[in-house]
């Protein structure tokens, strides 16, 4: 039987843990609200951009002059996987679910005889993938110093990706991130960035016939890099909200588990105490009887 003092310290330590997880949960809840607002605020721009691009891309697809970012390099050999995860842990399955998805994709591509390269955003994903894929990681983007992900961050990532694409380093780029659905559900998502794909909103009204200035092709090639930045930005924002959501529910679970553990330990503690008292009484009584 564990002695009373040990049990008591154990209970104290679990109580402290519960305090910490509770605090973390509340911090995440506050951050989640901010992240969600940011994601919400970025939506009008992203939607518009998508709608316009879908319109433009639809018109230009298949023509010879279609920009490479849209049409692809004409090859399908080298794939770049951009894995966006969080900078911190303690958020349930958030990081692993993205890493797992990226890993599955990498295995599938390698089996199909393709070359795979990886670019990681966020420390946690890199840690998980490093063991197996260190030699194919071409770069890592560190956002740990960034308090609030801004458009500029997304822009520099997108610019880097475009530069590598133009240098012929890869043919297809896909970004992996968690799409925020609700606090308890984040969906790991893969989005192909290059060749660019744009899905017009389903309820989009038939686009009017636009006049373009400068020409349609020029606008398209001007907007493509921006659209790419926007897609990366949206992914980062979704990821940010998902991370906080995942952490919040993970910490909520942890707090509840700590509470259950405290109850169990307290019962054990009381039983031991009672047993000790009973024992002492028995000793006294049998001592007295022996006289």
């Amino acid at each position, binding site marked *: 039987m564990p002695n009373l003092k040990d049990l008591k310290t154990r209970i104290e330590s679990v109580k402290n843990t519960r305090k910490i997880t509770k605090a973390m949960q509340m911090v995440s809840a506050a951050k989640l609200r901010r992240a969600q607002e*940011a994601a919400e*605020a*970025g939506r*009008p*721009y*992203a939607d*518009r*951009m998508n709608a*316009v691009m879908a319109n433009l891309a639809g018109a230009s697809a298949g023509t010879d002059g279609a920009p490479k970012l849209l049409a692809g390099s004409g090859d399908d050999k080298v794939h770049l996987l951009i894995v966006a995860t969080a900078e911190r842990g303690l958020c349930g399955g958030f990081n692993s679910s993205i890493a797992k998805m990226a890993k599955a994709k990498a295995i599938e591509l390698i089996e199909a005889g393709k070359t795979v390269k990886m670019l990681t955003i966020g420390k946690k994903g890199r840690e998980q993938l490093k063991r197996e894929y260190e030699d194919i990681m071409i770069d890592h983007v560190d956002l740990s110093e960034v308090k609030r992900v*801004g*458009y500029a961050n*997304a822009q520099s990532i997108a610019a880097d990706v475009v530069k590598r694409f133009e240098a012929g380093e890869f043919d297809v780029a896909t970004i992996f991130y968690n799409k925020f659905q609700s606090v308890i559900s984040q969906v790991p998502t893969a989005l192909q960035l290059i060749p660019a794909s744009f899905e017009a909103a389903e309820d989009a009204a038939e686009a*009017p*016939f*636009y*006049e*373009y*200035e*400068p020409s349609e092709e*020029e*606008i398209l090639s*001007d*907007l493509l890099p*921006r659209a790419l*930045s*926007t897609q990366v*930005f949206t992914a980062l924002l979704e990821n940010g909200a998902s991370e906080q959501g995942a952490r919040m529910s993970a910490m909520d679970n942890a707090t509840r588990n700590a509470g259950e553990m405290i109850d169990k330990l307290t019962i054990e503690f009381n039983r031991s105490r009672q047993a000790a008292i009973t024992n002492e009484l028995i000793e006294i009584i049998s001592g007295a009887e022996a006289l």
Partner: protein
Amino acid sequence: MATIQFDLVSPERKLASVVASEIQIPGADGDFTAMADHAPFLTTLRPGVLSVKSGNDVTEYVVTGGFVEVSGEAASVLAEEAMPKSEVTADVVNGLVEAAVAAAEGLEGDAKDMADKRVADTKALLDLI
């Protein structure tokens, strides 16, 4: 008087959404004014001042790039960077000029021409604010 819905959005937030009577926009190939029943029109922006007239109020914004989509009922400006003109100081513009100059460095051919134009447009902003 007929009005037109005006939206100014940046990737990070919605900056303005008002009903306007006319909007002057610095398009890539020249300034133009969008009013109600404008023909559907899509153009990129050059660095410049965008002014929105709504009733008797005129609000001005400095934009550095992006594009605008005009239809008969609405004009949506998607700007990468936009600030109310009152908040823009010469220092801010000088910063933009420096960035444009840095971006123009080492380019050749058409890209160089485009970048140079951007530098000139940005410099012209100094006179406008």
